[in-house]
């Protein structure tokens, strides 16, 4: 899957100091590229349809993104360790329903959120234990738990559903109110995002996640507590999926046994578009969040410029391909430029 010969890093290694700065810029550019695509898309839509970035429009954009961003942040942490959690959709569904059941006919909204998070932690723990203790492929295990949790959910929920009518008004309002255009849900998500980003960047635990994703064998030899770290990543991922479940409940006011079905593919796309490599060890949660924002924005943009929904799916897919392909082409070009520069510098040095 990797093109060993032409990665930008390798070339950059040739001429430390000069290329170093260049590399820095390029790496930052990576996240910037997704951001740029996003901004251009939003701006173009706004030009086409002036309602798009109205107060309501901005609020909607942010609200649409929150749930996916939360789950994508958790997923990114797991993917960075060279694992994956496919069960997030199922966890989201079951914890949303659990919170809803508790709130049904009155209950403390805060406690409901805690219940959802708690359930998420529980499933995260289950996944984490299976993956880290069993040392088995995460893809299989979490595909298994995806089915198991979904099955348990539908057996438990049956045909029941939670509707807005069953929920306290304060909770439902929390789902769409905010500080002027910024919804509370978005603020909460932002806080989680920054916390996760800071932890990954500036704590030993966070750096360990990158290390063990980069090379599990080396991590073991370096004395990194591999199992503990993987467990942590899964627990965080589960907790965030649970939290997302609670927010889903508040946002949509409606949960049944199908909630969150198929969500894993969306989450994985967001993470991939955001530049988190499935081979582990690289990428950031900010990238993943941007990827999520891009994906949900596409789904807001297309209806609001009146693209027939017949076309939406195809355009979605093509845009996703474009996003990753452009990113890759830019990276390859930069690598080429760097190599030539190194050559020039060397011949200058030689002369």
């Amino acid at each position, binding site marked *: 899957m990797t093109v060993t010969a032409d990665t930008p890093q390798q070339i950059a290694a040739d001429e430390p100091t000069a290329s170093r700065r260049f590399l820095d810029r390029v790496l930052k550019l990576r996240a910037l590229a997704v951001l740029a695509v996003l901004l251009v898309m939003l701006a173009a839509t706004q030009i086409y*349809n002036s309602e798009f970035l109205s107060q309501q429009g901005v609020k*909607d954009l942010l609200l649409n993104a929150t749930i996916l961003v939360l789950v994508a942040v958790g997923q990114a942490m797991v993917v960075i360790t060279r694992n994956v959690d496919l069960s997030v959709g199922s966890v989201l569904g079951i914890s949303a329903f659990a919170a809803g059941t508790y709130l049904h006919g009155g209950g403390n909204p805060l406690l409901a959120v805690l219940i959802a998070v708690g359930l998420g932690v529980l499933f995260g723990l289950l996944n984490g234990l299976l993956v880290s203790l069993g040392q088995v492929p995460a893809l299989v295990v979490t595909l298994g738990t995806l089915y198991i949790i979904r099955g348990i959910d539908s057996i438990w929920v049956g045909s029941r*559903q939670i509707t807005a009518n069953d929920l306290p008004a304060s909770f439902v309002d929390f789902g769409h109110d905010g500080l002027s255009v910024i919804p509370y849900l978005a603020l909460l998500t932002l806080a989680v995002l920054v916390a996760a980003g800071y932890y990954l960047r500036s704590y030993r635990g966070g750096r360990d996640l990158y290390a063990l994703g980069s090379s599990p064998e080396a991590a073991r030899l370096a004395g990194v507590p591999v199992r503990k770290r993987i467990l942590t990543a899964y627990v965080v991922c589960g907790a965030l999926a649970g939290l997302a479940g609670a927010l889903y409940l508040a946002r949509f006011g409606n949960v049944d046994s199908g909630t969150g079905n198929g969500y894993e593919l969306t989450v994985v796309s967001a993470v991939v578009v955001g530049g988190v490599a499935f081979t582990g060890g690289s990428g950031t949660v900010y990238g993943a969040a941007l990827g999520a924002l891009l994906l949900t924005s596409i789904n807001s943009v297309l*209806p609001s410029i009146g693209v027939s929904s*017949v076309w939406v799916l195809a355009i979605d897919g093509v845009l996703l391909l474009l996003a990753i392909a452009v990113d890759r082409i830019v990276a390859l070009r930069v690598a080429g430029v760097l190599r030539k520069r190194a050559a020039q510098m060397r011949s200058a040095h030689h002369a």
Partner: protein
Amino acid sequence: GGTTKNSSKDSGGGAKATASADPNAATKKGLTVAFLPKQVNNPYFTIADGGGKQALDALGSSYKEVGTSSGTDTAGQVSYVNTLTQQQVDAIAVSAQDPGALCTSLNQARKNGIKVVTYDSDTKPECRDLFVSQASSEDLGRTEVQLLAEQIGYKGEIAILSAAQTATNQNTWIDFMKDELKDPKYKDVKLVKVAYGNDDAQQSFQQTQGLLQQYPNLKGIISPTTVGIKAAAQYLAGSKYKGKVKLTGLGTPNDMRAYVKNGTVDAFELWDPAKLGSLASYAAVALASGQISGAEGQSFKAGDMGSYTIGKDGVVVLGKPTVFTKDNIDQFKF
């Protein structure tokens, strides 16, 4: 040469309903009727199938329900038909995910002596004995336009938020809606767009947002699907459009209660799903007892719902839908 569409007109080939029926035959007891809804765990079908079970209990026959947990798993539905054929049930009541895909296996079942009733969503007529329709498509289509037009004062732009683009019943209703709009009294009402939310809460949500952004002057939305209307209502309730943009369509009272009460929605309609299921049971038992064969003009008794007559193409219509408003919604608990 080759085989083209035109060269093979005589396709299909299911057992056509024969007219040999004895209206006075005794109602058999101890039959097994299997319900195969589009999707198990779907509240709507749970109510409908519940109605079917009650009727079967009353008739002294037994009920079972099987089905897929996804509403678009046609292959799954086919294999359930096959399983039921293997288990030799007496009749199958099925809500088809696809009008054609079930044909082979349903005809296979009928060859094995199993009666097939479709309800809620039909297959091609030659693949079943009877279709129990929730309401005439014409009624549904026209009344929804009437409901909305009234709410917006017969003036302004409207849009439709449907389910999947392939949903057969939705499309029939939408055709009738368009037809209704041709009436001169709707000359100021303009249908600007049909959007598809694929019966997914989130997609329906975003489609509603898109409609409102694309048509800032939108006055009303018709959503002839229970998932769509719920999602649209939830979005409107939390946005600045609440109360300003009217919403109607098909929804269940339980889903919509909160939005009717908080003023997001004035009125919407639906038939009683339990009665639909119940009628399907009566029809299935009547078929299995030999009282009817599915031919036009035959009639059968459906307990306290009275007697029903089979119409053209083997269709039995349940009746007119109920309109729910603030005033009557609390009387309905489904």
